C-alpha cells in the first residue's frame, strides 16, 4: 500500500501549503515559454510537457541577483548586504534531471566558502519530483546513469498513475515528509500501480567517454576542433543547463551609489577568461567547448565525484546550430 495524491485534490493541497506559508511552484507553460513558476491554483500547472524550457536552477541561482548595495560619500563608503529572499517554497513537479542538477551543484557552492544565496534557497525549498512518463529525442538521463525517476536532489518522488489521475508518493527526506504532513488530509492509501516510467534509450557509453577524456593525450586531439566548428559561441546551452553555475560579478548604478550583482556567465564566451593583457588561456571556440565537456565529465567529477550533467538534454534541444553534449559524447564514444 502506498499513499496517493489524486489530481483533483491538488487545489486543496496548494491552498493548504499556501496557508502554511509555502510558495507553491511548478511547471508552467507561459505564453511563449515554459518554466517553473509560482501558482495559486492547480490549473496553473502544466504537467504534460516533457520538460520546462527553463531549468529549475534559476530558482536557486537566478540569472541576476543583487548582493551588495554601496553608497559612496565623502570619506565614507556604506555597504549593505542583500540576502536571498526568505520564505519556504515547495517545487511541485520538478523533473528528476532538474532536481539532480541541484544536488550536483551543492558541493560546488558549499566547498569551504558557502554561498548563502544558494543555500538559503536550498534550505527553504522542498523538491517534489514527478517521474517522467514521456521523453523526447533529446532526453539522456539514462546515459548519465540517472533515470526518469532518479531521487537525487529530490525530497519527494511522485509516480503518476493511469490517466493522470494522481501520483504515488515516495517520501525521501524529512523535509519532504514535513511538507506532505501538511496535506496528509488529502492523501489516500492505495494499491494502484504507477504508470511505468518512460524508457530513455542510452545514447552513449559514459564510461568510455570519461576514459577518453581523462587521457591527457586527447586534450590536444583534433577532434575538438572538428566537433566545435559550427559552435557560434553563445551561452544558451550553459544558461539553460541545470548544472552550469559560472557567474560574473558586476557593479551598476550611477556615480554615487549602486548595486553589486551576481550574473550568469558562460565559459562559451571568449571574454570569460580573457586577461586584461589580451592573453586568453582559452582563445578559441574549440578550447572553450573542450573546457565545457572536460569540466562536466572530467574536472568536476575529479573534484566533487559527480558528473556535472544530469542528462536533461536542454543544451542540444535549444542549440541554434544543433550541437550539444549528446552529439559530442556520441562522437567521443565512436573514437
Amino acid at each position: 500500500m502506498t499513499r496517493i495524491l489524486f489530481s483533483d485534490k491538488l487545489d486543496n493541497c496548494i491552498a493548504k501549503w499556501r496557508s502554511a506559508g509555502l510558495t507553491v511552484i511548478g511547471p508552467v507553460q507561459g505564453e511563449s515559454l515554459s518554466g517553473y513558476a509560482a501558482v495559486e491554483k492547480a490549473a496553473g500547472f502544466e504537467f504534460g510537457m516533457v520538460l520546462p524550457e527553463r531549468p529549475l536552477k534559476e530558482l536557486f541561482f537566478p540569472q541576476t541577483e543583487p548582493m551588495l548595495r554601496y553608497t559612496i560619500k565623502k570619506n565614507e563608503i556604506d555597504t549593505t548586504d542583500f540576502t536571498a529572499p526568505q520564505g519556504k517554497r515547495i517545487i511541485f513537479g520538478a523533473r528528476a534531471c532538474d532536481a539532480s542538477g541541484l544536488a550536483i551543484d551543492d558541493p560546488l557552492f558549499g566547498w569551504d566558502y558557502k554561498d548563502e544565496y544558494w543555500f538559503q534557497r536550498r534550505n527553504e525549498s522542498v523538491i517534489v519530483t514527478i517521474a517522467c512518463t514521456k521523453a523526447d529525442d533529446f532526453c539522456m538521463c539514462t546515459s548519465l546513469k540517472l533515470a526518469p525517476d532518479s531521487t537525487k536532489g529530490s525530497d519527494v518522488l511522485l509516480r503518476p498513475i493511469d490517466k493522470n489521475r494522481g501520483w504515488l508518493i515516495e517520501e525521501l527526506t524529512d523535509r519532504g515528509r514535513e511538507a506532505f504532513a501538511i496535506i496528509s488530509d488529502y492523501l489516500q492509501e492505495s494499491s494502484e500501480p504507477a504508470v511505468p516510467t518512460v524508457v530513455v534509450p542510452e545514447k552513449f557509453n559514459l564510461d568510455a567517454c570519461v576514459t577518453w577524456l581523462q587521457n591527457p593525450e586527447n586534450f590536444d586531439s583534433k577532434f575538438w576542433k572538428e566537433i566545435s566548428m559550427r559552435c557560434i559561441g553563445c551561452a544558451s546551452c550553459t544558461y539553460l543547463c541545470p548544472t552550469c553555475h559560472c557567474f560574473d560579478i558586476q557593479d551598476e548604478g550611477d556615480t554615487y551609489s549602486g548595486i553589486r550583482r551576481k550574473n550568469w556567465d558562460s565559459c562559451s564566451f571568449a571574454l570569460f577568461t580573457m586577461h586584461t593583457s589580451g592573453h586568453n588561456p582559452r582563445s578559441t571556440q574549440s578550447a572553450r567547448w573542450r573546457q565545457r565537456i572536460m569540466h562536466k565529465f572530467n574536472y568536476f567529477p575529479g573534484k566533487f565525484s559527480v558528473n556535472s550533467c544530469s542528462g536533461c538534454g536542454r543544451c542540444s534541444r535549444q542549440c541554434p546550430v544543433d550541437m550539444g553534449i549528446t552529439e559530442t559524447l556520441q562522437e567521443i564514444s565512436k573514437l
Partner: protein
Amino acid sequence: MTENIQSTQQNIYKPAIMKIVGRHDEAPGVRTMRLEFQDPADHEQFKKTFRTGMFGLYGVYGEGESTFCVASPETRKEYIECTFRQSGRVTSALANADIGDLVTFRGPYGNRFPIEEFHGKNLLFISGGIALPPTRSVIWSCLDQREKFGKVTIVYGARTVADLVYKHELDEWQERADVELVLTVDPGGESPDWKHRVGFVPTVLEEAAPSPDNCIAVICGPPIMIKFTLISLKKLGFDEKNVYTTLENRMKCGVGKCGRCNVGSVYVCKEGPVFTAAEVSRMPAADL
C-alpha cells in the same frame, strides 16, 4: 545532502573597506599602493589568515574588483601592499584613487608558498616584469627571518630599465651581502648607464647557473617566461618538485565558485595560485 549544510550567515562576497595610506609609481603605468583596514575585525581576520603567496580582490565600487597578489610579506601584516598595472576598468579606477581614498579588499584567498618547508634551504627567486610583486612577498617573508634560510639568489628581469619595479628595494637587495641579485633587461631595453646584464631571463639564469643542490626555486612571470624558465631550470638540474610558480588567471569570485579560473580540475583561486612545476606539468589546460 542539503540538510546538513549549516548556514554561516556570512556574505562571502562582501569586501572590507580599505584606506589608501601610501602610493607610488614603480614604472610607467605600474603603481604600488599601501592599504589599511578600516574595520579592526577585518584586520584581525586578515592577520589570522594571510600567508605569503595568497592574493586578494581589490575593488572600487561602481567599477568592480580585480585580482592581484598581496605584495607585502606575511611578516608584515599591519597593512596590505599591492602593485598593479593600469590596464582595465578596475585598475584604472584604482590608479585614479588618491591617498586617503577608500577602496575595497576581499581575501586573502588561495594557497601559499610553504616557506616552513624552505627552512635551511637555498632559495632562488626568478621573476620577470610586473610579476615581481608575488615574488617580493616571499622574498621579504624570507629576508625578515633571514637566519632560517641558506643562500638567497634573486634573478629579475624586465623588458626595459624603466619597466623594472621596486627599484628602491632592488637597490637595497643589491647592497645586502646576504642576497645575490642578478638584474637583466631584454636586449634593446638597456639605458646608457645600465650596469647589469642584458638578455632574457632564462638565458641569464643559465649563465648565472645557480646550483640545484638543496635549492628551492620560485618563479613568477608572464606565461611565456615561465615556460622557458622551467626548461632552463630542468637543464640546470632542478627537480620539478622543488620549483614553485604561480598561475595568474582571470578571477571574479576568488572563492571557487564562478568557474573563471578553472584550469583542469583545479580552481586556481582556491587550490592555487601557487603550484609546483610538477603540478603544472600535469595541467595541459594551464596553457603555458
